[in-house]
Structure formats: C-alpha cells, structure tokens
C-alpha cells in the first residue's frame, strides 16, 4: 500500500503532499499522522500542500480531522503553501479549515508552530510533557 512519508524533526512532524491524493492515500495519511502524534508525543504537525491543485470538501475534511485530533493530543497543526487559486476556491465553496492554522510557507509555518508551543519546548528535544503555553 502506497503511503505519504512523515518526517520527524524534534517535536514536529512534517508532511509534504506532492501529488493529488487518491482518497485512500488521504485517509491513510490521516490515520498515520494521528498515530504518530500519539506515539511520539509530537507537539506540532506541519503539512505542506503547495503541490495540491485542488482541495475539495473531502480533502478539507481530512485536513480538519488531522487538526482536531492532533489538538486533542496537545499538538498544533499548520497547513502551509496553499495556492492562491485554491484559497479563493475554498472560500467560495464555503469550506472553513477548522482546527488548523495556515501559513505562507514551510519557514513561516515552523515559526508559527514554535510560537504556539513556546520557544523553550521547541528547542528542547527530551522534554515532552511538562511545558505549558
């Protein structure tokens, strides 16, 4: 079964979506990410969708699910690189990406995540649980 690779960087998980996802691939990604947040105690999830030409209600729901489930496990989700045409279309479609933050690019997304979880924790790899915002 094909899968989207998830990279671990300290307290963060990174995913780059490089192709238009088949539904199965998208639901697998959702399950894998949630599992990995749980297993690693990651505090942030960054999803790069700059290669996605369209986000329909199905994909939007997947992103929202990742965000809200990660949140339950105390991790923030940032979606980065959304193409302008996709952003315009989502607004007209009426789909809000609830539960996820958005940023222009990976760099800005990382900054945002660090801000959200607090700088002390972002730089300290061994110290998972006791930080507060």
């Amino acid at each position: 079964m094909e899968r989207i690779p998830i990279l671990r960087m300290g307290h963060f998980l990174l995913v780059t979506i490089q192709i238009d996802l088949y539904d199965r691939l998208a639901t697998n990604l959702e399950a894998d990410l949630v599992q990995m947040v749980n297993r690693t105690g990651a505090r942030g999830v960054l999803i790069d969708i700059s290669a996605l030409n369209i986000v329909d209600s199905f994909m939007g729901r997947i992103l929202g699910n990742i965000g809200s489930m990660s949140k339950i496990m105390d991790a923030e989700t940032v979606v980065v690189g959304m193409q302008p045409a996709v952003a315009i279309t989502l607004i007209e479609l009426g789909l809000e990406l609830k539960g996820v933050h958005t940023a222009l690019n990976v760099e800005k997304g990382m900054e945002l995540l660090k801000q959200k979880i607090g700088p002390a924790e972002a730089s300290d790899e061994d110290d998972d649980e006791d930080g507060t915002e």
Partner: protein
Amino acid sequence: MMTKMVLNKDSMRIEREQDVVPFRNRVREFAVKIGMGIVNQTKLITAASELVRNMLKYAGGGAVLIEAISQGRETGIRLTFEDKGPGIGDIALAMKDGYSSGKSLGIGLPGTKRLVNEFDIKSKTGEGTTVSIVKWKNG
C-alpha cells in the same frame, strides 16, 4: 438566448473512488485547451470533484459528459453528471448550505453552484439525478 455549440466532447464512467483523480485531470485538460485561467480552472475542477463524489456516494456511480462549448464570443466547459441512483426527493432542501443526509458538511451542492456560472439540477425519486454545470473561460 444564444445557443451553445459543442466544440469537443468526451464522456467518462465513474464507478469507483479511483476514478475521481483521472476524471479531474481530464476536466483540467479540457479547461487548459480552451485557455481557461488558473482560478477558474480550480473552481471548475473543485465543483466537478464535489459532484462526482456525490454521484459515487449517493448513487453508486454514473457517467459524466465533458464538453468544450461556445456561446457567442464566450467559450467554456460544460459538465453533465448523470446517475441512476435513488434521486433527490427535495431539491430545495438538498441545495441548502449545511443540509446533508450523509452526516457530512452539506456544502457540496450549494458550494458547487457558487463556483460555476450555470447550474442545473434535475432529479426524480427512484430514477436518478442529472446535474449540469457551465464554467465560462472568463466567467
């Protein structure tokens, strides 16, 4: 009212979830060929994706006719989704933002209507549903 002329067409059967991405790509090819800009392309393909998902989810599949059309000076893409599913009893209700019989968001139909220039839906309970949309190149 000016008549619409068909310049080019293709039809696709949609039976499985795996048919969605190739279908979207085919629609994109048609849109690119008439020179549709990226924003309108994205709106059209997103609308197409919503309708094809409805067809799969509620009617178990169907057929889509993809047409490049012209009307006067305008060119555009017309998509016609036809299924032999259960039909929609109350179209006005189905077109409402937030209404879903499938515990979903209920934005597919009303959202699609906002994304395109022409939207037409016909349905008969027990017989099926036909949805037709048009996106003009400069619409």
